[in-house]
């Protein structure tokens, strides 16, 4: 077997534990990049998918009361009446959005709505059970229902508080998968007469931009945004998330490079005598660097494959056990591959250069 009788492959097989540790180091970096970027992309795409089902096209809030990870309940529902009188507005409905620690991984959110108005405006239908009426009742979308929450079951929201699932709605619409009555959330949050935002649907004949301008003119000092902008990509709406992801990628590259460098450095020290033999046989510096780089690249490639496998497996398991969604994209997969390979190659470069510059006589005498 010529392939397995090469110096590169035989060295990897000869030191299985060190090779395995190097592979795991590279795999860890690759898997981290894939999982973080996959999670960001998955949650972002999921949010956008659900937002496209929201027919209300304008969101009216107090300034700064909504962000991805938090929201305030500081808008008076008294605005509702005035908004409905503005020319071009077909319907308006108040919504409380509340973000809380899910108790598992990350955050969850719940919305308080006037169910009949919300459903009518957004063309959302109860496909099983009925809409929420009492303060301890909740309706959920099909994805949440599929996670062992059938009609009649109970759902923990805000940590320990139990709510009875009275209905399942479709299509999925809005930021939250669980919706209570507006009164229920107002009571829980001790915010009577308040909401987070008022969702407005403009008449088909009206120009939404003109309607938004009129709202802003009639009710100055508030925030008038288009729904599509509020539910924009998570990556672009969380400040510095893009930078965070890039820093993560850089760190993964550094981890891969350091792991490979340490492994190759130790290997080179152990193989000093063998490098002396190579030099005695007439191997050039480039040949020696090439052999060590090939070994590092082979280890990195194995780490890459392991990293992808771990990311896919971990993403599947986390998705099944939580509500987190992972969607892997080619762009980040290529970035992860580049990190693994370039990190490994760069990490091996110093030990390789050191080996290539060894004095052959001293190397041959190395014990």
């Amino acid at each position, binding site marked *: 077997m010529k392939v397995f*009788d*090469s110096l590169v492959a035989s060295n990897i097989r*000869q030191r299985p534990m060190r090779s395995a540790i190097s592979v795991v180091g590279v795999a860890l970096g690759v898997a981290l990049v894939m999982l973080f970027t996959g999670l960001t992309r998955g949650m972002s795409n999921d949010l956008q998918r659900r937002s496209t089902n929201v027919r209300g096209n304008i969101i009216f809030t107090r300034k700064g009361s909504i962000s991805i990870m938090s929201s305030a309940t500081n808008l008076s529902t008294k605005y509702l009446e005035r908004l409905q009188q503005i020319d071009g507005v077909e319907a308006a409905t108040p919504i409380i959005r509340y973000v809380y620690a899910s108790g598992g991984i990350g955050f969850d959110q719940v919305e308080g709505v006037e169910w009949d108005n919300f459903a009518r405006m957004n063309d959302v239908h109860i496909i099983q059970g009925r809409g929420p009426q009492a303060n301890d009742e909740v309706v959920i979308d099909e994805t949440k229902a599929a996670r062992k929450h059938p009609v009649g079951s109970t759902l923990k929201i805000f940590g320990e508080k139990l709510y009875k699932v009275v209905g399942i709605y479709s299509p999925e619409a809005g930021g939250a998968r669980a919706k209570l009555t507006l009164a229920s959330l107002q009571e829980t949050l001790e915010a009577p007469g308040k909401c987070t935002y008022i969702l407005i649907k403009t008449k088909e004949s009206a120009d939404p931009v003109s309607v938004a301008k009129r709202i802003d003119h009639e009710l100055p000092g508030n925030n008038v945004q288009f729904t599509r902008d509020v539910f924009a990509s998570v990556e672009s709406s969380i400040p510095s998330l893009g930078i965070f992801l890039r820093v993560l990628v850089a760190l993964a590259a550094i981890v891969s490079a350091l792991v490979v460098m340490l492994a190759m450095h130790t290997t080179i020290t152990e193989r000093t005598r063998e490098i002396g033999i190579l030099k005695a*046989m007439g191997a*050039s510096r480039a040949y020696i660097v090439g052999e060590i780089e090939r070994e590092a690249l082979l280890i990195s490639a194995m780490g890459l494959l392991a990293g992808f496998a771990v990311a896919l497996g971990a993403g599947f398991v986390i998705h099944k056990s939580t509500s987190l969604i992972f969607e892997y994209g080619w762009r980040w997969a290529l970035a992860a591959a580049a990190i693994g390979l370039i990190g490994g190659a760069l990490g091996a470069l110093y030990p390789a250069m050191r080996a290539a510059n060894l004095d*052959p006589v001293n190397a041959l005498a190395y014990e």
Partner: protein
Amino acid sequence: MAILKAENLEKTYRVGKVDVPALRGVSLNVEAGEFVAVMGPSGCGKSTMLHLLGGLLTPTKGRIVIDGEDLTAATDAKRTDIRRRKIGFVFQRFNLFPTLTADGNLRLAERIHGNGAGDPQRRREILGLLRLEDKMHHKPLELSGGEQQRVALARAVITQPALVLADEPTGNLDSENSAIVLNMFQELNRRFNQTIIMITHNPEAAAACGRVIQMRDGHIVVT
């Protein structure tokens, strides 16, 4: 035709602040096809001379020409290249790659030499001569000392070097294996007209050679 010309070679090592002369003006001519033994007490400069002739060290003074190429005027890269094309080494401690089979060790030498799969006819002849045909898939640790040294010898000559430099090749072998290995050196010398310079402490090994050079205190005293 002289395959090796060494003129007035000097080599001084710097140990701390002290200069230690190892070779003090050695001149040597070796004709193509010669089998030369180098003898002398420990520390007389034999190994230093061998390393200089193989381009592993550079002399403090003097000139070495191998097969028409000036080793001393060459850069480090050029010297490595001359070594690759023209010189084969055999060491006392065999120095085979332990992770490779005997065949892998030979192929590595061929790869470094750059002649790909090598010359199949020469490979067959050498393996036959060294009686290694059935040992090629064994790793060094699965071979006896004599067999390992025969593999090392095969590795040194498989690429048809102009000169084989052997540093006490029988030093780690018992007398039976020493005799076998020496016999094979002689066969290689006879059959392939292979030029060999061999350092040895063993008078019987020296007796197998066509010429014996005696060294003492960094000088050649008998040539």
